[in-house]
């Protein structure tokens, strides 16, 4: 609990608001003691006076000093706001927890009552309640407090529901943990923090609401006074002494802001921890910068030629110099564990890495055109019609608010200049080509009406709107069942045969790649460590990592009498690369040289980056 508040205080905004809250707290305690009498003293020589040396902000209709009254009013204003917030918080949490404790029917009634009440603005609820509780301070505290209860109740319900749905609560139930302990040990500790943060923000809101009610004459009544009443009184004389209205106004805003900001800062801290870091997705293509001039002439005109490709996020370099080519119509697979840089490589070579990521390459040519140097317009046209992408999560990769047909059609509208109607016709045709049944009807549907496998086929169809020379498929079957996976892989192979497109297939599953591709690139810690024909994987792999990877994954022929090979340790973090070979700390063959010198990828048909490659043929170690 304390940790996040401490972090919040360390940010400039958090520190300022924390200091302010402390000052306000001190004022609330001390001001009435120190200046209480002064604020009541009437100065008959200066009634309704403007600012002067004796009365810095002037006096009111009884000749009382406005500055002192504003200071003294801190206690009542803040005290009432905090009391009201506590009332709202307690009532809200009780209402929020009630459905999970009460009998089902009653619980549902509470839930829907809260659902209805939460739709009304708190001020309206407060006015309604003020009628019932009566005009005055007590009535207003109850009214504002209870008016805030529905939103606290809703918050409690949502938070508790999200926690209750998590597996650790299910696990506790399976373990026989009782309802009460479930609530106190597993649910409440996990929702307490956001509740308190919201209550802090709520206190700011309550302060403003109170000022509003008092200003309207419904809240604090004479002879008591809070900032709202001082403001209301001051407004009558705004032409003669504006300070009388502005001073309590400023007090309300500043203190309200302090509560708000402190809560918001803490809330931001809460948010950052739960959010997953996704380096690969912010919004503008980062221009790959040429580091060495591409002097070499193109021989067999590969579809794609990459040399020394690097992707960096600030000081961290998750892709550390990747070089390979893809020939026309070739199917190349890229395998590696999560964090190996394979997806980032795919995004980088298709120009989709966004700021703050930076891409550099010695050479990056698509169909003989160097991408970094060419004019934007040309690159867009070239990639738009010749490079197709297929991503891992087909559901998330389609725009949920547009019909599937439209999303395919816009490719041809953009790059082939087709009319809207013609492009839609082409989209239907392409959906048929990827064996989506009833393509006319399907084209008019939204993505959520498709199954995952069907959407992935539609995604491939999207790539076929033009005539792709290369299809980059990044984990296209990871989210799919084996039989659907087979279908999608067959479709990719079919497209390769019919369109003559090359394929770069990225997967963590080495058998998927072995089955689909001619050649396999093995990635480890941001580098290619081995590049070899896929057909020879089983007996021909030479890098110890490739061998270990093959041996650690069970298949239908794995020896059941022996334990699976285990790769000890974990891959290095991209910001903590060892000086030598990145795999050396986990490698059984590592020697001194491996730990000090990073091996280069050899230059041959079968490339391997290892000082001590495993030359034994036969089954994996």
């Amino acid at each position: 609990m304390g940790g996040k508040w401490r972090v919040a205080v360390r940010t400039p905004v958090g520190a300022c608001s924390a200091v302010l809250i402390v000052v306000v707290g001190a004022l609330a305690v001390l001001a009435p003691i120190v200046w209480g009498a002064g604020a009541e003293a009437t100065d008959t020589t200066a009634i309704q006076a403007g600012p002067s040396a004796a009365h810095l902000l002037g006096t009111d209709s009884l000749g009382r000093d406005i500055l002192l009254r504003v200071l003294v009013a801190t206690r009542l204003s803040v005290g009432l706001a905090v009391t009201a917030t506590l009332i709202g918080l307690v009532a809200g949490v009780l209402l929020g927890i009630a459905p999970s404790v009460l009998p089902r029917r009653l619980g549902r009634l509470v839930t829907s009552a809260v659902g209805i009440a939460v739709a009304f603005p708190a001020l309206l609820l407060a006015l309604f309640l003020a009628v019932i509780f009566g005009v005055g301070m007590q009535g207003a505290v109850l009214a504002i407090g209870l008016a805030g209860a529905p939103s606290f109740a809703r918050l409690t319900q949502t938070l508790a529901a999200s926690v209750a749905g998590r597996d650790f609560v299910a696990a506790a139930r399976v373990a026989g943990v009782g309802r009460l302990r479930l609530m106190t040990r597993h649910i409440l500790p996990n929702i307490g923090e956001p509740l308190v943060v919201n209550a802090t923000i709520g206190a700011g809101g309550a302060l403003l609401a109170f000022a509003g009610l008092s200003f309207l004459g419904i809240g604090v009544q004479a002879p008591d006074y809070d900032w709202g009443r001082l403001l209301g009184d001051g407004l009558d004389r705004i032409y003669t002494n504006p300070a009388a209205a502005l001073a309590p106004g400023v007090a309300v805003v500043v203190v309200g802001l302090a509560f708000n900001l402190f809560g918001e800062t803490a809330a931001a801290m809460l948010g950052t921890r739960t959010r997953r870091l996704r380096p690969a997705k912010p919004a503008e293509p980062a221009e790959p910068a040429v580091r060495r001039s591409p002097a070499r002439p193109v021989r067999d005109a590969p579809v794609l030629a990459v040399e020394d490709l690097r992707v960096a996020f600030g000081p961290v370099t998750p892709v550390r110099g990747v070089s390979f080519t893809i020939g026309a119509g070739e199917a190349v697979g890229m395998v590696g564990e999560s964090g190996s840089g394979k997806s980032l490589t795919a995004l980088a070579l298709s120009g989709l890495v966004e700021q703050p990521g930076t891409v550099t390459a010695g050479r990056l040519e698509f169909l003989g055109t160097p991408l970094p140097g060419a004019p934007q317009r040309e690159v867009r046209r070239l990639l738009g019609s010749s490079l197709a992408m297929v991503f891992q999560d087909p559901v998330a990769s389609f725009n949920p608010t547009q019909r599937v047909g439209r999303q395919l059609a816009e490719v041809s509208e953009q790059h082939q200049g087709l009319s809207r109607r013609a492009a839609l016709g082409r989209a239907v045709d392409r959906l048929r080509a990827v064996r989506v049944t009833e393509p006319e009807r399907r084209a008019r549907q939204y993505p959520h009406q498709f199954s995952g496998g069907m959407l992935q086929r539609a995604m491939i169809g999207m790539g076929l709107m033009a005539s792709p020379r290369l299809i980059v498929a990044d984990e296209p079957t990871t989210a799919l069942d084996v039989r659907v996976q087979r279908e999608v892989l067959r479709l990719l192979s079919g497209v390769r045969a019919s369109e003559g497109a090359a394929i770069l297939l990225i997967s963590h599953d080495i058998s998927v790649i072995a089955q689909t591709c001619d050649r396999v690139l093995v990635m480890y810690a941001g580098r290619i460590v081995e590049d070899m024909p896929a057909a020879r994987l089983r007996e021909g792999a030479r890098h110890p990592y490739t061998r270990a990877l093959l041996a650690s994954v069970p298949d239908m022929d794995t020896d059941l009498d022996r334990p699976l090979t285990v790769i000890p340790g974990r891959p290095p973090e991209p910001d903590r690369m060892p000086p030598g070979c990145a795999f050396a700390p986990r490698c059984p063959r590592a020697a001194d040289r491996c730990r000090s010198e990073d091996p280069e990828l050899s230059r041959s048909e079968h490339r391997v980056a290892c000082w001590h490659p495993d030359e034994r043929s036969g089954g994996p170690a």
Partner: protein
Amino acid sequence: MSGPMSGPMSGLVSGAPARLVRAPWAAFALRRSWRFLVSLWVLVTASFLMIHLIPGDPVRAALGTTAPVELVEARRQALGLDAPLWQQYTGFLRGLLTGDLGTSMVNDLRVAQVVGERLPETIKLALPAFVLVLAISVPVGVVMAMLTRGGRRRGGELAFTSASVFVAAIPEFLLAVGLVYAFAVSLPWFPVAGREELSSYVLPVLSLAIAPAAVMARIVRVELLAVLGEDFVRTARAKRLPARLIYARHALPNALTATLTLAGLLLTSMVAGTVLVENVFAWPGLGSTIVQSILQKDYPMVQGVVLVYGAGVLLVNLLVDVLLAVLDPRSTIREG
């Protein structure tokens, strides 16, 4: 997980009459209207009960301790407070259906007539204010998102966020007071009260709109940035669409649907804001009416105004949900 997910309405047959209902949003609107009616009933019942929840005798409270007993009795009878509760309730409902909201306890005016005169005045403030909020917040939010995405211009981002948090923390009535001081007292550009000329609308509408606009701009920016990080925006970029299409066709519509839910909340809270702003500018709308009535303990009038305000809020919520269903077909499933 990836089983065939067909739309909730895909089973319905096509054909002319079924055509409208086949649209997922229309079917959703029907279901959603039911919830609207239930909420409306709760609202009506709550406002009926309000007068009975007041501790003590509301008529005595309204007329004061010095009023003669006969007058109190007569007024009680006139209000029908002597009848059994259920009879009062059915009478209240019958009155509602015939557009009769009762009679003021203070000046014998028909509540329905007063409300009918005051409501347009409130709408004349709230509607322009809402339009202004959208006109300011959407462009500002979009531009700020474009300028600050990918962690660029951190200074600008901080300035924008602080400014919007600051402005949003100023409640409408304080803003109103500040605006009055600045533009009616110091610089006599606009009238402080009255509603004869167009210029008299400027300050009240601004007071209502500025804080919500700041909140909305911040939300638009955050939502847009979130959408720009979605996979389907990456798909749009992989299609090599020009930036304007990526924004206009893929990012913005999705960001706005997310924003719309909050816009509804904002609109309802602006309805509440009119209460305060009308009191600063002596605007003869529902807001000043309800405050006066509360202070005068004119309960039938309070009841009438609460009903109208509440119904307005419910209606706004209904419209927002249906609009959301039209824009984002998925929302019909979530809510259904």
